[in-house]
């Protein structure tokens, strides 16, 4: 019984980790190529979820909603880039942090103004709304498996693009030394706009995918943003591979930690104290993990800069 429960938790952790990866992938590239710290990346995730909710309600179909939401998220991201972020690339990190923080404040309030403070619900497409039996008697929702499959597929596609194409080569070169790439005649601004747009769309995509299983509400991007930063810092800024590994690590540690910490502590403490300390420690685990990683490797696991 515990073994099946553990399996379910591992699947949940994987699913959570892959969602984090979708968000962190764009963030780490934007960070790596332009040295631009974008706190507003989390609202992109929120906007994706809201867009899919709105378009699904409009068209009556999640698939059509998603098909409309993705380009809309892309356009929205590019709009932010042109209007605000473009003016911040030459500024120091402090200015970037603050201005993008202002974008968060504004957009969180804007979605509350447009769609109301109450959470929205999005229905899972009928064909994928069931559950499958993964071991005897243990049901697991199909939609979560879909998220895992899609996350892995996007991860693979990104890996291929970044490692096997010319565009990917430029992105990697940009992450390692942007000034040199620019000096060699590559239009680094255009390259960056492409990276930014794709990153924004992936974050929006992540929001759209979780919209049916989480409540869509203002501020939903804020905590995810912090987790995405933890992921890219552990993985090493600018590294897709690092983001992938760190995202899965964070997803699994967080999910399994919440599940097992109280249980493991019962071996040491009496049950009520164990469950209380377990619940207190579990959410801190990933931050402790991050601190530990940075203590031994101050530039993350796979630093892309030399």
């Amino acid at each position, binding site marked *: 019984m515990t073994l099946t429960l553990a399996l379910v938790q591992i699947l949940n952790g994987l699913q959570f980790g892959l969602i984090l990866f979708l968000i962190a992938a764009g963030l780490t590239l934007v*960070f790596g190529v332009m*040295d631009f*710290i974008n*706190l507003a990346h989390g609202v992109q995730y929120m906007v994706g979820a809201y867009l899919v909710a709105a378009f699904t309600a409009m068209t009556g179909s999640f698939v059509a909603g998603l098909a409309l939401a993705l380009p809309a998220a892309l356009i929205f991201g590019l709009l932010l880039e042109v209007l*605000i972020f473009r*003016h*911040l690339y030459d*500024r*120091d*990190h*402090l*200015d970037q*942090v*603050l*201005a993008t*923080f*202002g*974008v*968060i*404040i*504004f*957009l*969180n*309030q*804007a979605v*509350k*103004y447009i769609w109301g403070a109450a959470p929205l619900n999005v229905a899972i497409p009928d064909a994928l709304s069931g559950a499958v039996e993964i071991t005897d008697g243990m049901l697991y929702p199909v939609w979560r498996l879909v998220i895992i499959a899609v996350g892995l597929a996007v991860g693979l596609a990104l890996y291929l693009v970044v490692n096997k194409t010319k565009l990917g080569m430029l992105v990697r070169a940009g992450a390692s*030394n*942007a*000034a040199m790439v620019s000096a060699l005649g590559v239009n680094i601004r255009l390259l960056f706009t492409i990276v930014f747009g794709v990153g924004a769309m992936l974050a929006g995509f992540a929001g759209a995918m979780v919209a049916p299983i989480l409540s869509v509400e203002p501020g939903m991007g*804020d905590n995810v943003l*912090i987790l995405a*930063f*933890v992921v890219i*810092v552990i993985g090493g*800024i600018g590294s897709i591979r690092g983001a992938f590994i760190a995202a899965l690590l964070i997803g699994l540690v967080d999910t399994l930690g919440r599940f097992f910490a109280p249980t493991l502590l019962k071996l040491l403490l009496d049950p009520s104290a164990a469950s*209380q300390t377990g*619940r*207190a420690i*579990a*959410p*801190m685990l990933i*931050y*402790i993990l*991050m*601190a530990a990683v*940075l*203590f031994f490797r*101050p*530039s*993350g696991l796979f630093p892309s*800069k030399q």
Partner: protein
Amino acid sequence: MNNLVDLDTPASPALATPLRTSRAYVLPLIVFAIFALVPLSVLWGSQSFILALVTRIMILALAAMSLDLLIGYGAMISFGHAAYVGLGAYSVAILSSHGITDGFIQLAVALGVSLIFALFTGAISLRTKGVYFIMITLAFGQMLFFLGTSLAAYGGDDGLTLASRSMFFASNFLKNDVAMYYVAFGVLLGAYLLLRAIVASRFGRVLRGIRENPVRMEAIGFAPYRYQLTAYVIAGMIAGVSGFLLANQTEFVSPAYTAWQRSGDLIFVLVLGGLGSLHGAIIGAAVFSLLADILSHYTENWALIFGPILILVVLYARGGITGLFGSKS
């Protein structure tokens, strides 16, 4: 961007040196004189909420001013400074819920806990640089936030209401809002003078030297790490005191005090007022709070105005409000 670029970046003109001219004393003097006189306005019939509002401004200013030591003078962009406000506030609330209402004990615990947390997290964080430092301080702040939300015995998510304000010399004079006001005022003034002295001291000069060029400072025989860690601990402890005051003023604590958005607010306050001047933090806190207060009277969607203001300040008002009084040569 490689390190060489950072090293040769000239300091922003807004990052001021200690006050030298007598003219430079005028602004802080005016600020403190206004604060000293605000309670009198209550005598002339202004409403008592003004008193509470200005007390909150001074508490916010205290936290932002301590952050100025890090960001303005030490170039250490901490994105987790609200954690110390939370530590100070929870020290009061938790002790008070166990019947320990003596203010000196609570204050000592607030200072002690802040010191330990700053020493421990600072020692780790300062091994990293730039963006990694921002992120790791953010992570430590979040760690405390989640610790706060899971403290079921002390209110968890919902927070905890204080039974009473702190007692000093077995007297509960802090219950009086005017007394509370002047305690906050006294602490702010004390912290200002202390930080001013620190900034002007040899220690402060070394800190500013490290801000400008850590490699050069190391080459002439200073270990940046120790100076930065000391500044980090001092700033954390002062922010802890602001948490002590905040808990007393609102008679309530909650994990929301340590949320990363509050750390963002502190940086906003600081940049709004002007980095590296200390009194800039006070002016920034006043403008920030008054703006939020006034806007929220007109519309519940005040954040729709607040966010763009923040963006515009960053893009166009370099040097903040104190930068407008430009007597910098």
